[in-house]
Structures are given as C-alpha cells and as structure tokens.
C-alpha cells in the first residue's frame, strides 16, 4: 500500500475522495455538492503545487517516480508507474488549475443533475492527470480511454440541442484513433517484453519499416485528439454542444493530450520515423493553421469561431514539436499552456454572456462594451492573448515556435514557418472581427432585449487567475522555460 502515499498517486487520485463524498450526498443539496467539488479540486491544485516544490527544474529526467509491479504474470510486465518531468509538469499544473476554474464557472450555469455533473467532472480530472503522469503504456492507455467516458457524459447530458450527436461523434472519433494505438502498444509490449516507456525507449532498435507503422498508429490516436487537419471534424460539434465547463476542459486540457502524446511517445520511441514524418506533419500543421483561421472567420457562432481557432493554434504547436529543435519544442510546450489559458478564458467568457442571453449568434450582439465594460476589458485581454499580441503569453509561444520552425533541419524548408506566420495575421483578423461584432458599434438586438448585467465577483474571480498568468508568461516567461528546457534537451539528444 506504499504506493498510495507517493505524491503523484495522491495528486492523481485525490479527486476520487471528492467523488466518494459526493456519491453519498443528497442530490438536492446542490450548493453543498458544489462546495465539495470546489474544495476537492482546490486541494488537488494545492497538491500539484506541492509536487512543483518537490520538482527539480534542472533535472531533465523523470522525477517523483512511483513504480510498482502491477500485472506480472504470463509474460506481462505491466507497472503502475507514474512520474513527472519537464515535458509534463506544466500540463499537470494547467489541468489542476483549469478544473477548479471550470467548477466555479458552473455555479449558476449547471442547475440540472449537479451531483452527476460533479462526479463526472472529478473523474475526468483523474483521467487527465493520469494521462500526463503515466509512464507505462498499458496504464497510459487505460487513462487515455477513460477520459472519454466522463467527457462523453458531460457533452451528452448537459450539452446543447445536438448534444447526443456530438457526444457519440466525439466518442467514436477518439476511439477510432485509440484502438490503432492499442495495437501498436501491444506490439511494443511483445517486442520489449515490458510496457514501461523508459525501458522501451532505452531498448530502442525498432526496425525502421516497423517504426513507421507504429508511428502512424500512435499518430492516429493523437492527431484525432489534437485535432490535426483533416481529422478535426468532431471538434466543432463537441465544442459547440458541450457545456461551458466542458468546452474549457476540452480545449484547455483534452486537446493537449494529443500534442503531449506526440511529445511523450512518438518522438522518443520512433526517432527514424519521426524524422521521416516531420515534413509531412509540418505540412498538415500549416494547412491546419491557415484552414482553421479561415474557417474561424466564416463562423456566425462565437463558440464555433473559438473552436476552429483551436485547430489553427494547435497547428502551431504541432509545427513547433516537429521542428525537433530546442526552440520549436519548448515553444510548443509553452504554447500548449498558452492555448489552455487564452482559449479557456474565451470559452468561459462566452459562457458567461450566454448564460444571460442564451444565444451565441454574432450578428445579434453589438455594443456590449458600453453595458458591460469589465466584461469587455477582460474579453479584450483574452482575445489579444489568443491572437498573440506582444506582452501577452500567446506571442511568446508563437514567436518561439516560428523561430524554431524557420531554422529546423527536420522540416527542411522555411516555407512552412513563412506560411504559418500568415496564420498569426489571420488570427488577428478573426479575433478582432469577433470583438468588433460583439462589443463595438451600435447596440445589437440582443443587447436591447436583455437587461445585461456586467460580470459579478464570482465570475471575475473565475477568470482572474488566467489573466494573471497571461501577463506573467507574456512579460517574464523565463521561469516557465526553465521548467521545460532541461527535459526538452534530453528529448532531443538523438536528433
């Protein structure tokens, strides 16, 4: 039972304590349930900060390892193996930060089946943390698949009018990718006689032609999750139909599971195939950047606009990862966090105004700034952060990625970075277009119809941590890069 006391075990499974408490609560005691969920996620966040204090930034290796033999019969070597390093520590913190924020955002938005909602939400947090911490392929696969179940219910139960379609589509799409990964995991397990990722990486020597197949199988799972063009079509549906908190987690964390997967598995396990695939991934990423931006601009629904912007932003992350140099990869990791912060904030804000108006049609808004100045200001900061204005976090990430991609040997041509840079300009176009339609100009019909109230204290408190981080990363990203850099250096030794 020693493994229960490991910091990472405590962190990953602590939300289950909240689940157990909520299970035995009366489903009518909605506020009490909310407080329990809030408390649980805050303590989890505290635990993740504790993990951060135990974490040595200069150490490039896996740290705080909890490794115990789990299933060790009949030729199976499966470990219960959690560990954290520079590649995952920030994503863990992002997860534990966004979860309480999302819970807080549901305070008045979710009135129906609060008990079930919070249970699924806490289960989802366990799954996400497990994905970022698992170092055994079998364990990883279990967490990876498990995240689908609560998210499926979150979309399907509390979503918009087409929620069932969106939920099933989300489930099947993601599963389609992950079952191919399952076969690749099994192959690796047979090959290395172990499912432990560090052991498999150390063993190496997978024949080049097999590497390509395995690379593709893993990439199928991750690319759907990211989502990379042309596998993105589940994303707008899932985002638009999901409740606000679901969208925040979906965009903020679940998409990162895809990019993180490339980082954790594809790049170190299949070096030959990674180099071969890099230009192709860069091509798809570039298409995604431009396509996502162009389609965003054409949207009439604000949430859909932000959803498609994710396709574009994550294209940058993919471009950075497969630049396969220190700048590109570090920038990509930071950009994962940035995207979680800014897109998370945008979804939260849209959710807050949606709660009052019950519409997301761009054309019915207008002139909001006059009525809701605080909301407008916060929205402006988040929008600028999303489009990458210098001084805010988005700029740091995108700039570093483009710098990496320009000089990348693996991608082989500066054109990808050059074309992608247009995506930054296009981001300005669609983001400012959205801002202008909603906040400036004459009052739209919805603004006239409703007595709109500005944000209350709870809502400002929800969004404040994200704003602080946007400025912090924008002005002084060094502490974040310091956490990332050693592990990235180790990752890229072979390249």
């Amino acid at each position, binding site marked *: 039972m020693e493994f229960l006391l490991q910091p990472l075990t405590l962190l990953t499974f602590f939300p289950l304590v909240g689940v157990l408490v909520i299970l035995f609560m009366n489903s009518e005691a909605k506020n009490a349930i909310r407080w329990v969920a809030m408390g649980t996620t805050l303590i989890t966040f505290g635990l993740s900060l504790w993990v951060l204090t135990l974490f040595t930034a200069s150490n490039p290796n896996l740290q705080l390892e909890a490794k115990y033999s789990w*299933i*060790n*019969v*009949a*030729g*199976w070597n499966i470990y219960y193996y959690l560990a954290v390093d520079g590649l995952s520590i920030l994503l863990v913190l992002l997860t534990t930060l966004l979860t309480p924020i999302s819970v807080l955002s549901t305070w008045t938005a979710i009135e129906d*089946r609060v008990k*079930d909602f919070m249970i699924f939400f806490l289960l989802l947090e366990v799954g996400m943390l497990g994905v970022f911490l698992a170092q055994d392929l*079998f364990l990883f*696969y*279990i*967490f990876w*698949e*498990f995240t*689908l*179940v609560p998210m*499926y*219910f979150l979309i*399907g*139960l509390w979503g918009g009018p087409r*929620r*069932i379609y969106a*939920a*099933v589509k989300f*489930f*099947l799409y993601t*599963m*389609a990718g992950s*079952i*191919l990964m*399952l*076969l690749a995991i*099994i*192959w690796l*397990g*047979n090959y290395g006689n172990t499912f432990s990722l560090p052991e498999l990486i150390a063993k190496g020597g997978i024949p080049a032609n097999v590497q390509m197949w395995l690379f593709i199988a893993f990439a199928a799972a991750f690319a759907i999750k990211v989502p990379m063009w042309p596998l993105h079509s589940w994303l707008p549906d899932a985002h638009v139909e999901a409740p606000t908190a679901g969208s925040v987690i979906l965009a903020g964390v679940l998409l990162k599971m895809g990019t993180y997967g490339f980082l954790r598995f594809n790049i170190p396990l299949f070096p030959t195939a990674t180099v071969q695939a890099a230009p192709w991934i860069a091509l798809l990423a570039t298409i995604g950047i431009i396509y996502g931006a162009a389609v965003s601009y054409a949207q009439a629904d604000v949430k859909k606009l932000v959803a498609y912007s994710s396709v574009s932003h994550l294209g940058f992350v993919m471009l950075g990862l497969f630049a396969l140099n220190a700048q590109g990869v570090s920038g990509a990791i930071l950009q994962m966090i940035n995207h979680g912060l800014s897109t998370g904030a945008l979804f939260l804000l849209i959710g807050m105004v949606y709660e009052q108006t019950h519409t997301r049609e761009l054309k019915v808004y207008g002139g909001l700034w006059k009525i809701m100045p605080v909301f407008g200001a916060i929205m402006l900061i988040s929008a600028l952060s999303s489009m990458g204005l210098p001084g805010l976090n988005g700029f740091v990430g995108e700039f570093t990625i483009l710098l990496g991609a320009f000089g990348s040997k693996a991608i082989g041509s500066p054109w990808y970075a050059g074309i992608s840079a247009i995506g930054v300009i296009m981001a300005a176009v669609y983001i400012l277009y959205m801002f202008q339609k909603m906040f400036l100009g004459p009052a739209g019909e919805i603004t006239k119809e409703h007595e709109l109230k500005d944000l209350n204290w709870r809502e400002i408190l929800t969004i404040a941590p994200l704003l602080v981080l946007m400025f912090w990363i924008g002005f002084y990203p060094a502490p974040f890069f310091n956490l990332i850099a050693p592990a990235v250096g180790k990752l890229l030794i072979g390249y």
Partner: protein
Amino acid sequence: MTQPEFKDFYILLPLIILTAWACVLLLADLFIPKDRKGITAFLAVLGLAVTLGFVVTQIGQSGAGFNGMVTLDGFSTFTSALILISGLLGIALAYGYIKRMGLERGEYYTLMLFSITGMMLMTQASDLIIVFLALELLSIPLYVLAAFARPNLQSEEAGLKYFLLGAFSTGFIVYGTALVFGATGTTSLSGIFTAASHNAPTLLLTIGAALLLVGFGFKIAAAPFHMWTPDVYQGSPSAVTAFMSSGAKIAGFAALLRVFATAFPILSVDITNVLWVLAALTMIVGNFTAISQTNIKRMLAYSSIAHAGYILMAFVPYGNKDVVATSVAAGLFYLFAYVLTNFGAWGVVIALEKSEGKGLEISDYAGLAKKYPALAAAMTVFMLSFIGFPPTLGMVGKFYLFRAIIAGGFPGLAVIGVLTSLVSAYYYLRVVVNMYMREGDPTIEREPWLDFTTAFTAIVTVSLSFVPQWLFLLASTAVLRLF
C-alpha cells in the same frame, strides 16, 4: 479394455455428483408443493455449489479416464468451473423471473442441471462419441427450456427452431465423426492423431474435420452458422437466453478446441485459415447486424455472435505449439469476461422486461438513469465492458486477446478485431444514450436475487480489471493435456 478403477471415477467425480443430484432433484421436485418451488431452486443451487467445490479441489490435477474417453486437465477444470458459475448466475436470474412470468415449474431447474452436466462432459470429452453424447445431453434440455414459455408463440417458435437447427448441426457432427472414423478407424481423439500423423491427411479426414467444424460453428453461433441465434435468443425466456448464450458457448468452444488441438493438428495449415475467416466473418456480421437492431434481446443476440468471433480469434493458431497455450489462455480469459458481462446485461434486461414481451425495445430504456441510477450505472459498466473500455474486465480481456493474436502472427485479424470493436461502440452506446440522455419513464421489477446478480457482476467486472492477476494465472494454467 481395462475395467474402470477408482481413478476413472475420480476424473468424472464432479460430473457424477451433479448427474446424481439432478436425478434426485427430478424425483424430489414431485413432492415439493407447487407454491414452494423456491425449494427446488435452492436445492439446485446447492448441487451446483457442491459440484463447484469439487471442481475447485481438482485444480492442478490431470489425467485420463475410461480408456481415454474423458480427460481431466486445467482446461476442463477452468471451463467446468465457468459453466457452473454460469449455472449459478442463471438460476439467480431465473428465480424471480419465471415466477413473475408465470413459468414457475420445478423442471426448469432440473433441466438446467441436466444441461450443465452435458456441458461439463463436453469440456472433458476426448472421444468423438463422448462429444456427441455430451452435445445431445446439453442441447435437449435447452430445446425444452427455449420453449418453456409455451403457449407463447415466440417461445414455441424459438424452441422448434433451435431444435431443428440443433438437430441439423448434430447431423453434421455425426457425419463428420463417421467420416473421420472411416479415415482413421477410431473415434478417440488421440487415436485419430496417431493414425493421421502416419501419412498425409486424406480427403476423407479433411472433410470429416470440416463437418465437425460446421457442427461446432452452429453451437457457438459463428457466422455463417448463426442464423438461428437472433430468433432463438429473442423468443426464449430471457433467463434461458442468458444461460444459453453463456453456458452453451463455453461448452461449444471447449469441445472445438479440444477436438481440433488434440486430433487435428496435422490439418492446422488448412483449418487455421478457415478459422481465421470464420472469426473475421463472425465479428463483422455480428457487429454490423447489431447496429440496426431496435430490440435489446436481438441486439444482445448479435452481440453474442460478435463476441463468439472474438473468442474464436484465440483458437486460430491452434496448431502452433509455441503460441497455442497463450492464445487459449487469452481466449478463456475473454470468455470469463464475456460470461460475467453477459449475465449482468441480461439481468438488466430481465429487470425491465414486462409480460408479453413488453419493455424490450432499446427505446424503453429512456430515462432509466434518472429513475434508477444504480441500475443504469451497472448497465453502462456492461456496455463499456462489451466495447472493451476501461475500467472493465472486457478491456483487459481484449488487450490480452489482441496481444495473443499479434504474438501468434495474425496482425490482420487483430486489426479486424479492433475495427469491429469500434463499430460495436456505436450500438452499445445507443443503450447508454437512451438511459442517460433521453427522457422517459421506465419501471423495473425489483427482486433480491436479480439485484444481487446485476450488482455482483458489475462490481466484479470493474474491480477485477484492477487486479486481474489471479484470473491470468488461472487462465494460463488452464492448458490442454495433450495425451
């Protein structure tokens, strides 16, 4: 020919006990008053439990008895235990159900016991004549049970259909046995092996083996021999279907494996290809046809066909000595997961079923989660386990199975397996969608044993997935004793 000794009887000991018990129960039931048939159920459970106890004491032992007509080995012990567990769960499901549906007659339990003796004999049979005997012993009570809801037309139709097609398939087995006997001069599995290995396989032997395969294909409901399954599963009383789709399948698989692995390794070049195609076809047909079903019993029938395909995958490399042990262990593990999940799912079906076949549409499950959250959660567990999703035993089972298949050198089959799993997610999720995401006002029957079965199988399905070690160990010791 030697006279039977004590060790011969010891090999069949659990079977002898259960047969004797069933005969006694048949008589005792006459003296149990009509309104207290619960006593019969209790006695039947007692018999099964005692037998299970004896089976457990035989773990790790092996031997042949009655001049090699029957075998005791890890494989037979594992499958017999699984069959007995199926019997216990089957009675737990039936107890309240047959009372409620007005079917409560003492012979229900006795017939189940006789069928179980047939199934157990099937797992031990190492002579084609015994295989035939066991097949009849397990099937005939099942034909009666399928038609147990007479004069309900659907049930009568199910009974008749099952009987006719069952008889037809038995015909294949008898004819196959005859041809094999013609080719080798013996019906003993080891004798066939010895006779066949002296010279190249004759056409007669090949045709005989193929006919046997067809016969077993009927019993395990592998495509294209599955046509009877949906009608029979839908028409039979649900408790019978639950038992039939578990027990009869286990027995069918047990016989298939023992006969082919013991007698026909020499034909494995051809038969492996045939099994490959059968497994692929069964997975594809079962899963794709299940999509269009609106009746939950039919959906589960097609799902059971699909799962037969998955289990069949494990038997594909039966002739390859290096991998057969692992893949059979994987097959047995999966069989265990399937049986458990299957009983749970049928338990939920029974809880919602009303008289005259009402409450069996998938749309009748709408709103279940709001009214009965625990039952809906249990059903969700079963559906996830069928799909192969964590945290359930079905997921571990599929992992094990695909691993064995890839190690056995059939990655193509594994790809078909995972892709059809994806298809299956669609129809299993539809049940979940109905339970959680649509409005409705279902009512359920609450019976203690039914609740217990559903809760027990759900909890075991989830918790065993975290500690599957001992089941792995049991499954991997369940090896065939190849004379």
